[in-house]
């Protein structure tokens, strides 16, 4: 899967968004975007399950990069001073592109790892972008064909199901929500009781960092009250 095509194909600069950028109304909005994208990427890398796709964030940043790219290109043909400025713009763009690319690659990794699981769970499926969903489907088909061809077809009919379950042991890989994550609160929010262990509490505050089970803070993460580190 070519991640660059995902990046480039979602670029669509409209007259209005360009105007928005020009008037400077975007400034505060844009500042939040880069910092937010950074944290979103960090969360996605650390979380065992796939998190909801941040379409607006990725699309807006992609648009801004495309626009800035044109500005930087223009600068290259001018004097030394302009070339230097272009180089600096380029440096920032590389940073943001890295964030988005790695974010997408991380999600792809999870899609490949948990294909069957997420295709069977509508609530998880809706966290994928349209392209990611298409990818999951083709990947699942590919896997099915591969398994059938390589050895499943040689087994007796009753053993040919690529997804089998024996007691609690399932051949479908599932994200481990019990795995440990490192987390801290985003604001001072007082004490919070752990779901899995009622007698244990953590303090929700940017100064208080904990290693806990992902399942204990899953909801807090969804609500934006904590961030993973």
């Amino acid at each position: 899967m070519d991640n660059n095509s995902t990046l480039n194909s979602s670029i669509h600069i409209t007259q209005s968004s360009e105007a928005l950028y020009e008037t400077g109304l975007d400034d505060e909005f844009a500042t939040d975007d880069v910092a937010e994208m950074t944290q979103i990427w960090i969360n996605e890398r650390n979380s065992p399950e796939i998190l909801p796709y941040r379409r607006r964030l990725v699309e807006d940043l992609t648009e801004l990069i495309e626009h800035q790219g044109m500005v930087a290109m223009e600068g290259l043909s001018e004097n030394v001073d302009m070339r230097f400025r272009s180089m600096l713009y380029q440096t920032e763009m590389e940073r943001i592109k890295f964030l988005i690319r790695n974010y997408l690659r991380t999600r792809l990794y999870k899609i490949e790892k948990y294909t069957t699981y997420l295709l069977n769970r509508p609530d998880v499926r809706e966290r994928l972008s349209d392209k990611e969903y298409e990818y999951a489907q083709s990947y699942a088909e590919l896997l099915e064909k591969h398994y059938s061809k390589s050895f499943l077809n040689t087994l007796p009919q009753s053993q040919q199901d690529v997804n089998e379950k024996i007691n609690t042991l399932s051949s479908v890989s599932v994200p481990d929500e019990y795995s440990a994550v490192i987390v801290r609160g985003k604001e001072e929010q007082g004490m919070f009781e752990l779901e899995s262990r009622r007698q244990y509490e953590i303090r929700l505050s940017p100064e208080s960092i904990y290693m806990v089970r992902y399942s204990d803070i899953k909801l807090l993460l969804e609500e934006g009250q904590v961030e993973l580190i």
Partner: protein
Amino acid sequence: MSSLGDEYYDIDAILAEHEKVPGRFNDSVGAELNLTGEGVAVPSGTKVELPYWLAESLVEFYQRDETLFDMETPRIYNNRVRNAIIAGPTSVDTRRIHPYFHRLGIKFVQKFEQEQLAQVLKLSFRKRLYMILDHAQTVLNTDSSHFTRKLDETERQLFKLAHDSAMAMKSWQSGSKPLLQSAVSY
């Protein structure tokens, strides 16, 4: 280290559960079932050694209020071993006792809720982990095979995690290649 959702494919789980454990049949078992692999009938009360994966399933069968099979504590977790660990957790060669000493022990303890064994395993784990991290953080250049020789599989994997992390840090600190390829950036 495999996570909870991957157990089906986990080779270490498969290997660990090959270990034979002692137990007793409370009822007779017909020859056609070939439970012990020898193709003979097993009379009630017979003591056998079965692979853990099999024993683990057999204890689930009930007949007239009694389990078909009772598993005993495997030899590798007997009092002699427990006392050795309590006396000196970091001196024990866990690998020699069993390559999957901790892994199998944890499975056993989860299934049969044996408190004392759980405490011993916790102690062993904690003290030996300290030793493992200490070695990974302070001994960076030399070949560590003499150290890992006495670690069981779980411990070796944990050592690898700590060691790889320490090596990545070392590489970074001595000036590794930058993340982004552009001429001036980090």
